[in-house]
């Protein structure tokens, strides 16, 4: 009896969820309320600004992961490229390179690394997971060796202000880096939903064979997607350079599971190219608010990680599973 009611309800919810991340918005609001009600100073200006800045870092790192997951891959080199970008920023900044040159070199190198990732994964049919694991190690090892892991470089003052939660934009109390995030979000949204490139990306992820038959150069899509992912990781690394002030060996590490979690929690599917970057934005916000809550309630980082793993299992369980064997005979 109960099943008769719940099954159509579940089906309708799933259908709505597919089009609109309703549950995520509800979750975000609920988590925010939880924090406001149970933690002092949670809803204060400075606290919200900090959360927004952290969410920006995560959101930008997860932007690349989103693109890669939409075509059916995954990028494990995100933490390495973040670390690499971070170290290079402080190193080159310490050598008084112009900011523009620093950004150009780092992003250019990252794009190259990402392109190689995409090419190897597609051309040789090796899982992207493994390719990016290997290349990430090569990148971070090279940068650490080159910088000898001790970087007392410096970043321009305006840049430190850029990522500060206390900064403002045109008099508005919005941290500057958040504005960057908003701009990137809009650009990604336009590319994914309004351009031919975006359509080809989704087609490749939805059904690669059909995409090839429909004249899409899927190898270029893979190369481009992974290059994009690497560039976004590098941007995050550069931003973190301003945030922390120095280069750090393991600054990128938490972003491995956080970037993947942000995409998954946002509701983007791991198979079939369902989802977009708005969802990842929501996912990033949810994760930051959640972790701020957990920290505020004195839950350890360990607990956070356990909770995240379980959440991933729960979310993927509702939409991301494989076909049964008997349907493949």
């Amino acid at each position, binding site marked *: 009896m109960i099943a008769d009611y719940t099954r159509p309800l579940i089906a309708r919810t799933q259908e709505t969820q597919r089009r609109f991340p309703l549950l995520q918005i509800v979750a975000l609001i609920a988590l925010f309320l939880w924090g406001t009600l149970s933690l002092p100073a949670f809803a204060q200006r400075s606290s919200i600004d900090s959360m927004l800045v952290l969410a920006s870092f995560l959101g930008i790192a997860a932007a690349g992961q989103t693109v890669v997951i939409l075509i059916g891959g995954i990028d494990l080199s995100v933490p390495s490229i973040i670390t690499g970008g971070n170290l290079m920023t402080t190193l080159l900044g310490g050598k008084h390179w112009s900011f523009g040159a620093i950004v150009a070199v780092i992003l250019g190198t990252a794009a190259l690394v990402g392109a190689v990732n995409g090419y*190897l994964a597609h051309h040789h049919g*090796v899982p992207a997971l*493994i390719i990016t*694991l290997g290349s990430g190690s090569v990148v971070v*090892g090279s940068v650490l060796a080159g910088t000898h892991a001790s970087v007392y470089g410096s970043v321009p003052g305006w840049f430190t202000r850029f990522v500060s939660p206390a900064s403002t934009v045109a008099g508005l109390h919005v941290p500057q880096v958040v504005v960057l995030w908003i701009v990137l979000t809009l650009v990604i949204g336009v590319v994914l939903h309004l351009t031919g490139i975006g359509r080809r990306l989704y087609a490749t992820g939805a059904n690669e064979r059909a995409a090839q038959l429909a004249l899409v150069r899927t190898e270029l899509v893979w190369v481009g997607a992974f290059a994009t992912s690497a560039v976004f990781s590098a941007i995050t690394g550069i931003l973190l350079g301003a945030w922390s002030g120095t280069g750090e060996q393991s600054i990128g590490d938490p972003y491995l599971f956080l970037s993947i979690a942000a995409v998954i929690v946002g509701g983007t599917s791991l*198979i079939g190219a369902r989802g977009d970057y708005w969802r990842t934005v929501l996912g990033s916000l949810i994760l930051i608010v959640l972790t701020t809550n957990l920290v505020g309630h004195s839950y350890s980082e360990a607990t956070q990680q356990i909770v995240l793993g*379980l959440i991933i299992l729960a979310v993927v369980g509702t939409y991301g*599973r494989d076909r049964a064997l*008997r349907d493949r005979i």
Partner: protein
Amino acid sequence: MTSASSVSIVPPGVSVRAWLASAAREYTFVFSLVLTIALVIANTVVLPSFASWSQIPGELGTLAPFALAAMASTPAILVGGGGIDLSIAPLMGLSNVVLVIALLPHGLGNPAIAVPLLLLLGGLIGAINGVLVAVLRYPPVIATLAVYFVLGGIDLRLAPNPVNSYPHWTAELATSLWHVPGTVLTVGVVLLCWFFFRRTAYYGSLLAVGDDDVAAFSAGVDVAAVRILAYALGGVLAAVGGIALTGTIQSADITVWPSFVLIALAAVALGGTALGGGRGGFLGSALGATAVYLIQTLLAALGVDVFYVQVAFGAVLLVAVVAGSQLGRTSPMWREARG
């Protein structure tokens, strides 16, 4: 229609490349064996004391967790269906932490008690992975990645800071026990078990499922049970790896296990196990791990910056998997399927 008299598709005039590829398919561990021998020679040339009797037990002891991590990652890959187990490394860490923090200080440190307990723990967690993949049909990457996060969190929770252990029996595993290198007990016993394992009914089913799960299913194989058992087996071996790891570090230290993720996969790929499943084995993985370990020692002996070791590992993984995928492409059935 071909006549039944031409039984083999490989005529006398076959190209050398194809012949080599088919030989590599049959004896998957050959490449890693050759590489290992070359690296042993290289190491001895650079640092003559490398091959001295007094050093070897310790070297083997350090090698043991590498080899066990690689062997633990193998069953999930062998069983196919996109199979991979990313949770092996944190599971090794868990075994290490539980032994040092929970078992030893509370009178459960006796190997006769601790070892079965840890193996059981590993097997149970492995079985959970197996159920997620084979019954609930999660993609193996995501299921084991989520378990990786959960186990990592548990590890961090139990041992946020390194905890030294008082001297105990695992130390002998890392050195020697009555003049026999302790690694003989850990890795050696596992390899011995592998030797007998290859003669079991399960082994045939495991490889068949990994090769073509649809064919196995149609022939009546219980594919889900085979897969669950494979992941459970990986978990048991990870637990053994954690014990061996404790032997070398003599403490509970969660900063050690993360590097094993990549090392294990590189070792498995080097050892000739196909990423798609159905081909490979423990011997190859152990030899692959040995090769990876020897690269590390060689670089250290050459005085190379420790960070270049990371570069080397990454490069080895990339080369191994790309080369492995090329080998797969020359098989006759693959060519036929491409039509």
